[in-house]
């Protein structure tokens, strides 16, 4: 009959009208500045640079390898290598960025820089309340503004950060173990050499010394 469908529809809208007063599944509005939905762990907005330790500039994990600059789809990363090196987390001397700029007016939050970074130096931030009055300079973030401590990374992406830290620690342990083993082997070799030298005076050496097996921690 004519009008039946309209009446059905009106019943439906009435149900929603009433439902919006008592059913939270219907009235899903979150009134933003007062209420906020906590950021999801995987959320991403703009990248930031992770630093270890207190001093942001000293602790930057970035080694200015420029892979992210090359892979960035909209080409919003801008890096100049510094000529002086600084030690990284395992103590190896690495380059550091002299300039590390991200133009967030161009950045499209794709996370590819994070994926391609071999050093876990760049991660995605979840902060989205970034309003500002300067349209040009304000949106060009330099490395001081980009640098954020590892503890911050832990607060926004706890699972991922723990995993990264574990990996880095494992790597560090590996390197340290290797260094230790190397040192031991060296000492051994030196001792052996000394012994050989001493022995050489009596008998020629028979067995070449082998370095001790390096214990590699499971990854």
């Amino acid at each position: 009959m004519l009008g039946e469908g309209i009446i059905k529809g009106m019943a439906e809208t009435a149900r929603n009208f009433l439902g919006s007063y008592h059913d939270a599944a219907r009235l899903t509005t979150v009134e933003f500045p007062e209420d906020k939905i906590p950021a999801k762990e995987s959320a991403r907005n703009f990248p930031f640079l992770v630093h270890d330790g207190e001093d942001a500039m000293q602790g930057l994990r970035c080694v200015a390898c420029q892979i992210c600059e090359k892979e960035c789809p909209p080409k919003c990363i801008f890096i100049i290598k510094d000529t002086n090196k600084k030690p990284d987390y395992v103590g190896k001397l690495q380059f550091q960025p002299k300039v590390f700029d991200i133009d967030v007016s161009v950045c499209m939050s794709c996370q590819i820089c994070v994926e391609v970074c071999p050093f876990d130096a760049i991660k995605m931030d979840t902060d989205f309340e970034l309003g500002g009055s300067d349209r040009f300079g304000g949106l060009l973030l330099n490395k001081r503004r980009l640098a954020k401590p590892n503890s911050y990374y832990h607060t926004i992406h706890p699972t991922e950060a723990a995993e990264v830290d574990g990996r880095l620690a494992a790597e560090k342990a590996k390197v340290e173990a290797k260094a230790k083993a190397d040192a031991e082997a060296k000492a051994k070799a030196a001792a052996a050499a000394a012994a050989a030298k001493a022995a050489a005076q009596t008998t020629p050496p028979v067995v070449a010394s082998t370095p001790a097996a390096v214990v590699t921690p499971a990854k």
Partner: protein
Amino acid sequence: MIADLLNGIGLLLWRVVSDQPDAKGALLPVLPAVLQPVVSAVLSVAPIIGVFASLFALTTLLERKGLGRIQNRLGPNRVGPFGILQPAADGLKMLTKEDIIPRSADKVVHFLAPVCLAVPTLLAFAVLPYGRNLVPLDLDAGLLFFFAVGASTELSIFMAGWSSRNKYSLLGAMRAIAQMISYEIPLIVSSVTVVMMTGTLSPMHIVEHQAGFIWGFIPHWYVLTPWGFAGFVIFTIASLAESNRSPFDLPEAESELIAGHLTEYSGFKYALFFLAEYLGMFAISGLGVTLFLGGWHAPLPGLEWIPSFVWFFGKLVSMVFLFIWIRGTVPRLRVDQLLNLAWKFLLPLALINLVVAAVWHFTAVWTFPGALVVRWLLGAALIGGPYVLLGSALSGAKKNTLRVYRYAT
């Protein structure tokens, strides 16, 4: 003198609130004779403008809130507590916007159009009875006056559309003309049934005819008779079209014609159109309340102590809420379907409804027990049959049916 004046004002207010006749008579004799006609006019006009302008503000808020709730949103709630000051903010925004007149527009007509729309709309309020003794102008041919004044709004919409020199405006204006003229007819014919039954064109008397209760508790409103119900439905549909409300908002069809005749209007002029449209909606709802919903009569016996205008405005707001509810539910008709609905469905039904009303009138002499029920059923059958037939003819002409779909695996 001052004491007399204050006394007069107090008495006037008391008479309004307590539904006593001749409220103005309480104040006017206090004043000098020269002032009396002027004050009398002001006393009639100022409350109408004041009350309906604030009702307009309230309705825009109610509409936005109601639509919001229907759509599972909160609606405006930022300006003032519960967003109550939102209309003020809207009004301020409208007033401070730049008034743009397109370079190629007909400037005079472009300016006159909103004025020409607002004035007759306000005039229509003159004949509506708001309370038991509260009618600004008790014209004998009040209904005629109402329709005459209401019909003149079409002109201003066409003025707006034509003078804007915008293709969308023109299309919107053409639609508006076709729509409003077409729906004027079912609107009037459905009202004529009431005139037939009451034998008067005065809204005041029509309301008085609906006094009393059947069996002591069913109000004697016309909407509760078969012809009255059919008439009320036709009247409501036609008044939706007359006030350009969804699903008949074709003249300003947002998704097709941007804003139709309003495309080139901004600022205060736009606000005036907006105001006039809502005032038109109130006026026509007010007429609907007067004709079919018993005007200012209370719905149940024993509630008469509540001032009668409360009932009137309560019913008016309910009508408006119905309009909002419909707006939140249905899509828009197409222009040919709109005209088909008017000419092939509403008009024949309204004419048949005249016959039903006549039958109802002449069977009033039946006095056997249960006569009322029999009359009711007879009337319902007389109008319901044509409704079903015309309805299936209208929707079945194109074999519009609910379809069954096949599936491939």
